[in-house]
């Protein structure tokens, strides 16, 4: 691991070549989904399939967070009955999935994107509006 720089170091040392923003996909309503169209700027850096797999997993995770299922209903009813004080002690299902997403993105960055000079920013840091992909300059990789 001595050779691979930590993401922090990379960000501070490497110069950013460009940023690609993947916008939200509203074709299914207001649920959180991102466009999985492969941006042309990344063609030279990463395999299309790999990227689309990451995007698909992310979209699935967000769908899981916002799913209207029995769990969310029970949580909602319980919250209502306790005058919403239960949220002060308990973490909501959405928050749990967000943590999972953060971990997944971290893992993807470490394994796949950082070695290629890319960095995925967790959409929650951008208000769930975009997935920001930072493209670092090539010379930082040859260090």
């Amino acid at each position: 691991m001595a050779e691979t720089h930590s993401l922090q170091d990379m960000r501070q040392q490497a110069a950013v070549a460009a940023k690609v923003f993947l916008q939200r996909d509203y074709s299914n309503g207001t649920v959180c989904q991102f466009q999985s169209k492969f941006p042309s700027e990344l063609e030279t850096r990463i395999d299309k399939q790999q990227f689309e797999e990451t995007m698909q997993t992310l979209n699935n995770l967000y769908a899981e967070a916002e799913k209207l299922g029995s769990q969310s209903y029970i949580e909602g009813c319980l919250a209502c009955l306790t005058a919403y004080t239960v949220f002060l002690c308990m973490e909501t299902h959405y928050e749990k999935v967000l943590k999972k997403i953060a971990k997944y993105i971290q893992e993807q960055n470490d394994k796949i994107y950082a070695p290629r000079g890319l960095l995925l920013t967790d959409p929650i840091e951008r208000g769930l509006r975009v997935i920001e992909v930072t493209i670092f300059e090539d010379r930082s990789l040859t260090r």
Partner: protein
Amino acid sequence: MMKNCEYQQIDPRALSVLPQSAQNNTEKTVQRSRRKWEVFPGKNRFFCDGRIILASQSGVLPLTLGLIIVTCGLFFAFDCPFLVKHLTVFIPVIGGALFVFVVFSLLRTSFTDPGILPRATPDEAADIEKQIDTSGSSTYRPPPRTKEILINQQVVKLKYCFTCKMFRPPRTSHCSLCDNCVERFDHHCPWVGNCVGKRNYRFFYSFIISLSFLTSFIFGCVITHITLRSQEGKSLVQSIQESPASVVELVICFFSIWSILGLSGFHTYLIASNLTTNEDIKGSWSSKRCAEESGNPYSYNSIITNCCATLCGPMPPSLIDRRGFLSLDEAIPAVSASEIELPPFTVKSDAHMCTQSTKDVLERMVHSYDVHGLCPPATPKTTPLDLEVSGPAAASSEPSLSAGCLPQDARQPVVPPCPPFSRSNKRRDSLHSINPAFRLASPSPSLSRTTFILGDAPDNGFIPLP
């Protein structure tokens, strides 16, 4: 080098973390790190170190609370003893439970982030600007930009928000009172002192429903109380004289019931059809498609599902992260990205952009002298020179240009921050008169960045001319 420090930045976000702390981590802890709520661009007020969020004016929230507390207080003090004696002890118990529920819901509605969307970062805004067709008009307020998308096979127009620098997601609206884009914006409720949006709609609904029950309950109990008293051989007037508080309660409840019950009914209808007050008032989905059952693309076409989705659906998190600390990482990548954004702009510089940007740069210079007191003297001197250099690249990359200078300056000593900029509404308004294409999410940075670009560009050799 020292010159760079003078007109530095003024991004209050970057400031708190920029200085030597970039190299020395311990210094970061010694220096007071700021939380994101302190630099929040909207008009909200924060309490308890960002835990509680309120609109800029609390509206009539104190009145609402006061009315509820006074009415219930009178009820418990004057009516309950009589009713407990003559009827049952459950009356104050039910009343108490309703009262607690009402107050909790009210406070939850008022103090919860309604679903505020954080403003676009400068990079995002620049990216969106790139994609929008600017016809190169010389007016400072280009026509509203809209984007049409398909939602469930229905065409929906997304509007561009000039303040937040992004295309508003569907069902999102910008509240002018709070100066924020709010998701699933219902309305701004002065009684509650906050916007009602995606995250606090269920609290608002439970507030009005429980309040309807409470007012009806108190109304009923007071009527029962007076009736029982007058049945004991006294006249109605005598009963009222014995318990004057009941009349006060009656009056308050009588007038509240009409409005509260009406509101509850209205919102029940909205929930059942998965509409927001905003959409209903504008008639977004009403008469457009008569052939289809419902023109509303968000409706699940089942009353139960609509209700469950709105009220018992998953609780979305707050997107503004009020209590998060401003990090160095946030400042630096945003900043260094701009360095490289320059070449594409210089390469594809076209005449329109040149003249427009030069004109705007000049305009901004003039404005910046008025508003920005920090860096006056040196800027005029270097301006003409810089204009040549930065002209073609200036257009929408300008904010990024100036931002680009930051990493170098990160190694410089700290520059005193300009706190008034980040929160002064007046100044923001004056800034808004400048071409919106150049406005950033936080007004102060754009201004300061402008001045600093003018001063610094040649020194840093920043702009790689093609």
